[in-house]
């Protein structure tokens, strides 16, 4: 059971959060100019690394803020969490 440090509320139990997938995937600005493969890349292709992973979480039962976390997908340790727009 993860203990995740919400950058606003501090450490909280995993059950207060919901996972929101890989972080730092910016929505393309002029989507109509993308070809199908480029669009598919944005839509579906993911790093899914074994090890360090930058990902988004939502403090759903808390402050309702999305934030980023760098978490190891093998040992599950959250190395850091940081607000949207910030760097880890």
């Amino acid at each position, binding site marked *: 059971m993860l203990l995740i440090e919400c950058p*606003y*509320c501090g450490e909280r139990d995993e059950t207060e959060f919901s996972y929101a997938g890989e972080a730092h995937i910016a929505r393309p600005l002029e989507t109509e100019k993308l070809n199908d493969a480029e669009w598919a890349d944005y839509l579906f292709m993911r790093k899914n690394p074994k090890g360090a992973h930058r990902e988004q979480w939502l403090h759903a039962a*808390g402050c*309702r803020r999305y934030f980023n976390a760098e978490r190891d997908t093998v040992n599950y340790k959250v190395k850091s969490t940081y607000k949207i727009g910030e760097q880890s």
Partner: protein
Amino acid sequence: MPDLFQQHSPLVQIDFGELQDNAPTIEETPFLGYLNLRGKTSNMAFVAAVLKVLGVEPPTTANTMVESGDYRIYWLGPDEWLVITPTGQAGKVQSELNAELKDVFSSIVDNSSGLTLLKITGENATKLLNRDCPLDLHPWVFKPGQCAQTRFAKAGMTIAPLRDGSGFEIIIRRSFADYIGLWMQDACVEFE
């Protein structure tokens, strides 16, 4: 304002009157006013307007609450607060805030019927809440003046310790109130 008796609390079907001997006391304070306040504290105009209407600036420290006269303001997020007013005053406060914040990026939404408040007091209050709340409620770490949004069983709640240390108040959503009430009633069987 229509007559108060025309209101029905969300817990109208739950009776906390006859709990087990050692159970904490559970009491609803129905019909308070609840305003969801949004704005940026980086904007001085916003802070000033809130100060003017509520007599206090919105707390910027996460998970704290402030009191000002009859009002209480809970921190809910970096740009979100819950303003609790006495019964029947939410509309007035909302209008005043709206007037002051007319040109300021903000939002004041009346949620008075969407929430209700329970006071859980007595020796076993913490025990009852920790039956299915993962938050550490120990007085060393969760002190009067603090508040938190967390969960109880499968519902959300906002919780704060009472000033006098006698227990907690929790604010829960109307549609989940019945569920939480029944859960607590069931949990109190332990305290016979």
